[in-house]
């Protein structure tokens, strides 16, 4: 049975082959050339698609948090804005919270919710005037400065202004240590 099967055995006898046969060699080189061009035409858009998030980086833009009247003086309140770059598929995650501190009049400070340690959401405690982080126990004072725990700096601020009686902040990009936004 084994001898009747031409595919049996690992090595087949064949005449020695000259890899430098010029015509075949030319066609092979032509083929490599065509594929290199095609490869670039296919590969560059793939890489471009992948890195588009960096190349065409979205910048923070001005977003209204609504009338300043909703923020009582000498208090800190959560405000929620819609991600300016949201799509329909974002669902609830398009709602981005932040903490608005109104000292008096038009003196505002707007803090990102993300702890500067590892990005967990900090919670404001009105009575003790502290922001506490649930993940690794970071704590921040009322003005956002570092109070205790592992965070390397105070809370991130959003750039803000008051326009026509509305509080407007520059947001839409997740603040991180690499890009604190403001």
């Amino acid at each position, binding site marked *: 049975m084994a001898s009747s099967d031409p595919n049996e055995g690992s090595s087949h006898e064949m005449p020695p082959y000259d890899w430098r046969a010029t015509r075949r060699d030319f066609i092979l080189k032509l083929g490599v050339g065509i594929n290199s061009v095609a490869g670039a035409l296919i590969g560059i858009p793939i890489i471009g698609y992948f890195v588009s998030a960096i190349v065409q980086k979205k910048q923070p833009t001005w977003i209204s948090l609504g009338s300043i009247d909703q923020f009582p003086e000498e208090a800190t309140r959560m405000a929620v804005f819609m991600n300016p770059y949201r799509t329909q598929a974002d669902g609830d995650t398009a709602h981005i919270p932040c903490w608005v501190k109104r000292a008096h009049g038009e003196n505002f400070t707007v803090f990102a919710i993300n702890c500067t340690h590892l990005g967990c959401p900090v919670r404001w405690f009105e009575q*003790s005037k502290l922001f506490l982080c649930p993940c690794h126990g970071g704590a921040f004072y009322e003005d956002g400065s570092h109070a205790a725990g592992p965070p390397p700096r105070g809370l991130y601020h959003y750039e803000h202004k008051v326009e026509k009686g509305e509080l407007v902040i520059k947001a839409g990009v997740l603040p991180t240590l690499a890009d604190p936004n403001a």
Partner: protein
Amino acid sequence: MMTTLKNIALWFERRLHLVKLYEQTAGHPVPKSTGSWFYTFGSMTLTCFVIQIVTGIFLAMAYVPSAAEAYHSLELLNYAQPLGWVMRGMHYWGSTMMVIVMMCHMTQVFLWGAYKYPRELTWLSGCVLLVLTLGLAFSGQVMRFDADAYWGVGIGAAVGGRIPVVGDAVVHLLLGGPIIGTDALSRFFSLHVFILPGSLLAFVSIHLRLVLGKGINEQPKPGVLVKRETYDQYYHGIIKREGVPFAAIINKDVVANGILLLVIVALTLFVGPKGPGIPANPPLVIPEAKPDYPFLWLFAAAALLPNGSEIWLFFVFPAIAALALFALPFLSNEGEKHWRRRPVSIAIVVLTYLGVGLLTYEAIVGPWSPHMDAWSGLPIKAEYIKGRTPVELQGALVFQNMQCRNCHAIAGEGGHRGPDLTAVATRMTNPQLVRQVIQGGGNMPAYARNLSPEETRALVAYLCSLHPPNVPPAREAVGVLKPIGESSPTPTPGGNSVTSNQ
């Protein structure tokens, strides 16, 4: 009849060469000694992976990888799709077991010296499989897309943002956009269902090819040293003397894998799938964001290491660990294989398991995190209120209202970020307590701006009452030696005694 069947079989054999395939795989000779319970973890890891592929395919039929729909589709799987919860449970427990048996496999291979000559590449491909499996475990918990997953991605982005120079680019690549949303979920989805499983399959085939090509590591004997010049001959000698077909020693693998499957089924039926938890709605500020079991130790380390050491934890340490794993077969290429004569290896294994185990335990307890609801949800027990003066009772109110309880437990109840204050009066005197409250320090925020002098006085009066009835409170070593709070006037915070210190 029999000849017809035989002819059909031969027809297939001539085309598929199954006999040859059998000889190269299930029939290939292995040392008889490898038919051991210790050698079953590799096949168990593979079994878990098969479970993950099968259940993963069925989950993908219902799962919608969009931030708006993912959570809802998981609830449909849990409650509406018949047996959807079983698929979810098996996928979750299959993943947990995969990490566990893979660690057992790796530990066994390490202790049995199987990474030494000539199986260096088998070890290296195994290390790649470890990284891919952990990648699957991490991206898998993002698929759950509840609040933990959402903030988990945020933690990933925050870690990325700490990378020098390219941090910002890494964050944007990871999230696929400027902020956490559906693009981030889709990225993790591609990673979880295409890139990582595909790579895993490729590396599993390389891993198995190497196992077949270089043979299964024989049970080492103490004192028999591996030498590059003689090992191949030595191994051939073993095969010649006591070689058996691989198919003959799979009996224990079959039993172990059967038990593994039963364990996964039992965990699915009696514990069920995990989550989804709180919806990923960012304004719902969640009480904590903990990762799944394989990453709890990292979560704990992030809290327990000294401030500012994150760059070591997230970049330097993993780089060193990866380098050590990949360099191992070259650093220790020859010599003793048996664990009994390799005390350093045993120490490495014991210390690694102790470290990871303790950190995991700490992460489950989470003593560094404030207990966010303690101030409003945990009343002080009556025995710590009874018999107090009106000022002290006011102090107890301050203690609750100012969220002190979120970090400080009384009688074990409350946060564990700061010291338990059940008997704080036996450790600190009245002026020391005032200073601690006002100035903070030792990871406690300063309350000077947030407490009125009256509140501080009341709070400290209450804290001074926290001592067992038969143990007197601490007192100053100089001055009038009287128990504080009984007759001597309480120092006024914000007054002379404190401000003069600053």
